[in-house]
């Protein structure tokens, strides 16, 4: 590249960031988005929390490696379940799903079983989240063409 920087030969990780931007909370979206971008990822942010149908369509059209979903209001079980179903239905189960937000500890094993990993709560160091997304992205890519 013209800047002479050591351009990574590998494709940047593409991640769909789905997080409701509730009043007062919507700074959180940008904190996450910026951290992902600064870790070298291409972050697709579609605005207000998309429905599971929209999430899956966007994830497919944008060919993302990971969908990162952060939920605060206790709707996680239904939303994650629907997303996983729709990914399968659309033959896109190669896309990794990473969860976060306010998720009761008791729900985590269920989510893990569905294939939703991470499930980080508030206060998790950003570097843990980023490392985890990178790991899941690598797995996801190895499943694609």
């Amino acid at each position: 590249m013209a800047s002479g920087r050591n351009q990574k030969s590998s494709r940047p990780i593409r991640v769909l960031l789905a997080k409701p931007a509730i009043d007062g909370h919507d700074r959180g979206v940008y904190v996450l988005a910026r951290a992902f971008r600064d870790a070298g990822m291409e972050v697709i942010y579609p605005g207000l929390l998309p429905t599971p149908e929209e999430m899956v369509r966007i994830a497919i059209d944008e060919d993302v490696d990971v969908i990162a979903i952060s939920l605060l209001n206790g709707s996680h079980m239904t939303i994650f379940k629907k997303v996983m179903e729709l990914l399968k239905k659309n033959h896109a189960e190669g896309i990794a799903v990473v969860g976060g937000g306010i998720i009761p500890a008791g729900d985590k094993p269920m989510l893990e079983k569905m294939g939703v990993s991470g499930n980080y709560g508030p206060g998790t160091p950003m570097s843990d989240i980023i490392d985890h997304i990178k790991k899941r992205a690598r797995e996801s890519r190895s499943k694609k063409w």
Partner: protein
Amino acid sequence: MKALADGLKRGDRGCIARCISIAEDEPEAFSKLIKGIYDPNRIPRVIGITGPPGCGKSSLIAQLAPIIASHGNKLGIIAIDASSPFSGGSFLGNRIRMEETVSSSNIFMRSIATRGAKGGLAASIMSALITLSCAGFDTVIVESVGAGQADVDILDIASTILLVLAPGLGDEIQAMKAGTMEIADIFVINKSDLEGAYQAKRAITAYLSTLSGPQSKMIANTSCTKKEGIKDLAGMIEKHEKSINTKSFIERAFSMEVNRIAKELLSRRVDGLLARNPHAMSNMLKGRVDPYSAAVKLLDTEKKHGK
């Protein structure tokens, strides 16, 4: 690969999406992929949207897209955002304004990061257009990064170019004169619901009157918040499309693309040229040869040896 090419021809969204990624990451594989399935005569016409950040390009596309699609076009949208020169990452946020439209009309939209390209587009743009052509798309709206005078690459691929401006951008308009102003076919003063729209129009009219020769450039006033002026703008786009020879645009796009790829391949050959030929450095240091001659000679010898 065969399954992917078949899926692409069928218009399968997952396959289209994958092919665009392959175009971005592995140009060589992409070239194999499209062999035999792409037709230069079907490369979509491109409506290019440029203009300073925040002037409402994405909002405008969200409202224009359904009108253009309703004219019987198979429409796609590609929105470009800048990559960070430091991390290589990017915040692709154009969907924020477009998602509602895209979701209700089922239009295919893709966000692409510049990945170091300088002219307001991404290196993969032409391949992305070829991909869409294989899937039957005939019209693509491209939102370029639009940050200043250097963002004129859109000229190489678009048959109609909209320069979107907003009231209160007087100084920007002044600063832009040298580059982006020239390439616009249609000046769009968006946010015309805000004060200053009239002045903006006057500034552009004044600018146009300084140009010599016959002027076919058009000026539109739009407001996305009030949903005003969008139909007229769509009409102007069609009018302009009818007035031009689209074939010449394909030629321009191809020559841009071949130049770009050739430069890229050459620059790869140049990487490490001196490291592979340490004697050249010692010759320069001893004053036997100057840098210019050394470079010419190195390229020549490497070419002979099939490097």
